[in-house]
């Protein structure tokens, strides 16, 4: 069966941007296309999968058609992919499958979200639409509140407390400080991160990612095309995706994300790799507790030791077992919901090609993992990328 590689990747900066949806997508797509080593005629692109939650409702229907007509891809087969915060992780997987199936040779996967042009009331409404509306939202739960329930339970079950979450925040802000596309490029001290105002007890401001504007885009190609167009393709070695019950209370456990475990198991199995082989991981740290649980779910830490993993600094750039979130993660790089999954892929692509800022380059990295979660864990896509297939 055909192998699939990423031959181009680009994204806008993440942040509170003045650019519109169309401008952001055009920028990300142009950067992705122009990053292809030997050039890419956009006429070669056959399909586009664009992840977005259509936050704010500006263009809920036919989002992908509107985006592609502003990036020179008009006329091709397009669709919006929606799985909450995992929208573009799944868009990437769909693009990969389109090539694996033999139906297409060059496919675009991307993501986009515009979140900061809304009134606070409207933003608050949209931030809560991806949980179980009837049974969670109407019990007062927002996503910070849902993850807060997980955090408090985690502290109760394991040897962990809020300080462990502070370590995650400090690390990710340190990583993101050097990232030119990060939303919050600010280092924070342990004391500062420990003293944020309460958002949803026990989670404070520094436990929560920002709401960001941004777009991301990658070009995938079948092996025979990839080798012609790129000297340094990044190979998709494993792809796994899974789901779980939408509402936290319906799940077997509130201190682990089973969808992550299932998706990771498939991706590891396909790639023939284990967690020990991964040099860097972009994990879905929408809240600091999410990174703690992800490190366990993905096999970097034993069950119940994600807090200890953070405390011991085992995810710090080039210092620990594996570099966790060298981009700064959602916490610092930012979280434009629909863009985040492919944004992680963009980071891994650049890291594997030694193209990020030197001060935050993960050294001697051969394989990277990207972990993108939808909502509080209802959906998850995991991808393993490598320099060699």
């Amino acid at each position, binding site marked *: 069966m055909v192998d699939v590689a990423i031959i181009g990747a680009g994204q806008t900066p993440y942040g509170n941007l003045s650019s519109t949806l169309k401008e952001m997508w055009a920028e990300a797509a142009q950067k992705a296309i122009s990053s292809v080593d030997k050039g890419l005629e956009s006429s070669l692109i056959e399909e586009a999968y664009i992840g977005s939650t259509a936050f704010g*409702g500006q263009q809920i229907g036919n989002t992908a058609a509107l985006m592609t007509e502003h990036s020179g891809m008009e006329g091709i087969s397009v669709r919006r992919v929606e799985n909450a915060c995992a929208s573009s992780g799944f868009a990437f997987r769909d693009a990969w499958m389109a090539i694996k199936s033999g139906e297409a040779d060059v496919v675009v996967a991307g993501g986009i979200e515009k979140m900061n042009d809304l009134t*606070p*009331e*409207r933003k*608050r*409404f949209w931030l*809560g*639409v991806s949980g179980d*509306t*009837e*049974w*969670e*939202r*109407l*019990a*007062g*739960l*927002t996503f*910070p*509140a849902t993850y*807060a*329930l*997980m955090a*408090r*339970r985690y502290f*109760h079950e394991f040897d962990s407390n809020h300080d462990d979450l502070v370590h995650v925040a400090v690390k990710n802000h340190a990583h993101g400080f050097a990232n030119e596309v990060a939303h919050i490029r600010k280092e924070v001290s342990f004391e500062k991160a420990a003293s944020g*105002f*309460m*958002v*949803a*007890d*026990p*989670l404070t401001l520094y436990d929560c990612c920002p709401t960001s504007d941004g777009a991301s885009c990658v070009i995938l190609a079948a092996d025979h095309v990839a080798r012609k167009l790129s000297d340094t393709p990044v190979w998709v070695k494993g792809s796994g995706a899974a789901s779980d019950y939408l*509402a*936290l*209370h*319906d799940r077997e456990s*509130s201190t682990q994300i089973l969808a992550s475990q299932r998706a990771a198991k498939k991706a590891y199995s396909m790639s023939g790799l284990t967690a020990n082989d991964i040099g860097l991981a972009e994990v879905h740290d929408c809240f600091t507790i999410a990174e703690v649980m992800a490190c366990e779910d993905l096999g970097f830490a034993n069950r119940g030791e994600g807090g200890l993993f953070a405390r011991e600094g085992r995810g710090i750039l080039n210092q620990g077992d594996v570099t966790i979130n060298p981009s700064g993660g959602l916490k610092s790089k930012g979280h434009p919901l629909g863009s985040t999954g492919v944004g992680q892929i963009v980071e891994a692509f650049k890291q594997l090609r030694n193209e990020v800022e030197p001060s935050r380059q993960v050294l001697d990295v051969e394989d990277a993992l990207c972990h993108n979660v939808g909502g509080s864990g209802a959906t998850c896509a995991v991808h393993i990328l490598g320099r060699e297939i």
Partner: protein
Amino acid sequence: MAANECIPLHGHILCLAASGVLVRSRFILDGDRVHGPDSDYTCLAITGLCALEEECEVTTIQCPSEVDERVIAAYGFNVVSEDGEWKIVVHKDASLSITKDSSMIHSTAEDGEEMDAAFHLEMRRAWDEELRSVSQGAYVSEQQYLTGLESRLRLLAQKDGDNYFWPGRENNREMNTLPLPRRGIIESWTESAAAGSPSEFAFRSPILNGMTTLLLTLECGVKGVFLLADDEEKKPEIGSLVELVVRRIYAQEGLIRYGLKALY
């Protein structure tokens, strides 16, 4: 008719009499009883009917307009429009009687908690505003709310061997259902900041200084999330037992939506 003894029940005050029951809000303002922050006559009526059911068979009930009869019916009582065996009669203050002859029961007991006047006024205004509010898009329609009301209020779970499903799954409709006891153990909890609640609660959350949600393990291993009732300020503790009682959840497009909240 005068009541005999009065006891706390469901966060209200229940007074028993020979002819029926009197249910009163436990909150007092300037000597008058006023409804709690998320309570009204419908919530009081459920408490009274539950108490009555402990004493005798409650066959049919007639509700006044102040009581949402759909909630009474969804809770499991037989509501009729006329010739009901039991009649609910609302009083001018936040209390009501349930008797067979529509008589009012009175109590001279002064028990209750003083409510802050400004808080009371702000909450009433917030509920009025909330009632007029319109959803911005994705929301629980009246049809969806009413369809799920019985499951919500009675905790009707589907049973398959040792497995229980609540709320029920559409593909399990052939399974037997049974109501779970309305109590649970706190597995976790959180308090959202005043500005951090879902938009449905945007008017009241700042007044309440945030809202507390509990993750509970009910009987048979079923879990659920529930708001804390009555703006209770005491911090919940994991492992504690709580009782689930009927309260207002939120209001929208002219309809007050009820559900179970945790009394801690």
